[in-house]
């Protein structure tokens, strides 16, 4: 294949940048959608119904899956190249360079944690919702009770009543925060939209975006856990 998106280092990075950008936009949409559950179970379930096994939701899901696969496969290819480029002999002593973030040097590890978290999340929600509808069903058994595929609010309520799920999801969100704190400004740099004037702005934007995403997702998890402990829902 003679395409710079596959053959050149800058082209491969551009693929990471664009796929990462699309995934960040989806995550922002998902977080906004989740916040609805804090205010109204009916409104949230209405969105779930809209995103069931409809053709546009299926196309969107397939697109997202493709983006995740492309982002991850390219990350692996780039990381293997980088490992080889570093050479067989490693430095005996390494000191942290000033101004270099921890996240920027650990994007693959953070990405793997995010991916594992995603698989767990899919097993908790997607497998009980859209997948059930794709397979022709309307409800599935969760924790000994039957929950409708469109009743996302009930699934949230059940999942985050368990303390271990709360801990796992919060670890996942922390890894996502670190990943995005570097990834968001880095995608501008890779696409060439950056300079010394814009670095502080882009890094500030990355911190704001990643923090809002963290807080938005964590709020739903924590609020539903507290509600379950109080027995108020």
């Amino acid at each position, binding site marked *: 294949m003679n395409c*710079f998106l596959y*053959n*050149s*280092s*800058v*082209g*491969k*990075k*551009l693929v990471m940048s664009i796929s990462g950008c699309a995934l960040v936009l989806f995550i922002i949409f998902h977080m906004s959608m989740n916040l609805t559950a804090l205010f109204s179970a009916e409104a949230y379930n209405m969105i779930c119904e809209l995103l069931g096994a409809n053709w546009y939701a299926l196309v969107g899901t397939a697109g997202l899956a493709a983006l995740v696969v492309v982002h991850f496969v390219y990350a692996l290819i*780039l990381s293997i*190249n*980088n490992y*080889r*480029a*570093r*050479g*067989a*002999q*490693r*430095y*005996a*002593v*390494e*000191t942290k*360079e*000033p*101004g*270099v*973030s921890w996240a*920027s*040097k650990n*994007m693959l590890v953070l990405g793997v944690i995010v991916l594992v978290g995603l698989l767990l999340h899919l097993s908790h929600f997607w497998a009980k919702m859209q997948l059930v509808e794709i397979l022709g069903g309307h409800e599935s058994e969760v924790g000994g009770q039957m929950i409708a595929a469109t009743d996302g609010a009930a699934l949230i309520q059940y999942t985050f009543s368990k303390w271990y799920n709360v801990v796992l999801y919060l670890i996942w969100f922390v890894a996502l925060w670190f990943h995005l704190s*570097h990834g968001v*400004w*880095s995608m501008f*740099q*890779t*696409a*060439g*939209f*950056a*300079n*010394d004037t814009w*670095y502080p702005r882009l890094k500030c934007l990355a911190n704001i975006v990643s923090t809002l995403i963290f807080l938005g997702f964590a709020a739903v998890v924590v609020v539903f856990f507290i509600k379950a402990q109080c027995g108020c829902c």
Partner: protein
Amino acid sequence: MNFTLKIWRQKDAKSKGAFETYKVTDISADTSFLEMLDILNNNLVHEGKDPVAFDHDCREGICGMCSLHINGLAHGPGQNATTCQIYMRKFKDGDTITIEPWRSAAFPVIKDLVVNRGAYDQILQAGGYVSVRTNSVPDANAIPIPKADADESMDAAACVGCGACAATCKNGSAMLFVAARVSSLAKLPQGRVEGARRAKAMVAKMDELGFGNCTNTGACQAECPKGISIAHIARLNREFLAAKLQD
């Protein structure tokens, strides 16, 4: 001042290397790092031992010949300085100093602390020049160039090609070096003409030589002895992508 030196010794490119420990004593705080190594080598020669091989030339920070990874940092402690500009007052009396050659697949060790940086020359030969004969130096203001562009070009042209960027990058990427060369010419009218061809050719050669991919850690910028900004990498990305999209 007295120091314990842990120095990488390697007979030649094919031999397996290892650290050896040496002591140097009565070193003045105002001795440069390379002069300290000269003193060590003088002692070794007097003892009938093989002196430590290391690269050096101008010893005033402009030639790019000196290298060395000192206590985990390219060109040792201190910002915007090459190894020859580091003085022993940067260290504490009694310190143990670990000295390693650049570690990068594209920079193989030739002997001890000397590595082959010919890969950078090959990247330059791929396009880091203006191919039209420009004859003698033109009149100063024959081609007006905005001050900001001239400054940016000169900042990039400050690159001495020492290899610290690739040596310090966790990915072994040479992007800062390539970016500095592309950027210094792209900002001038004489170099602008071949901008697209240059960016494509130099990136292709860089990839071919086995350098890694830039992940924007910024370690290269932190360790560059000339303080070259990663903003030049963003410009290289723009130049390369725009050139490829026009193909």
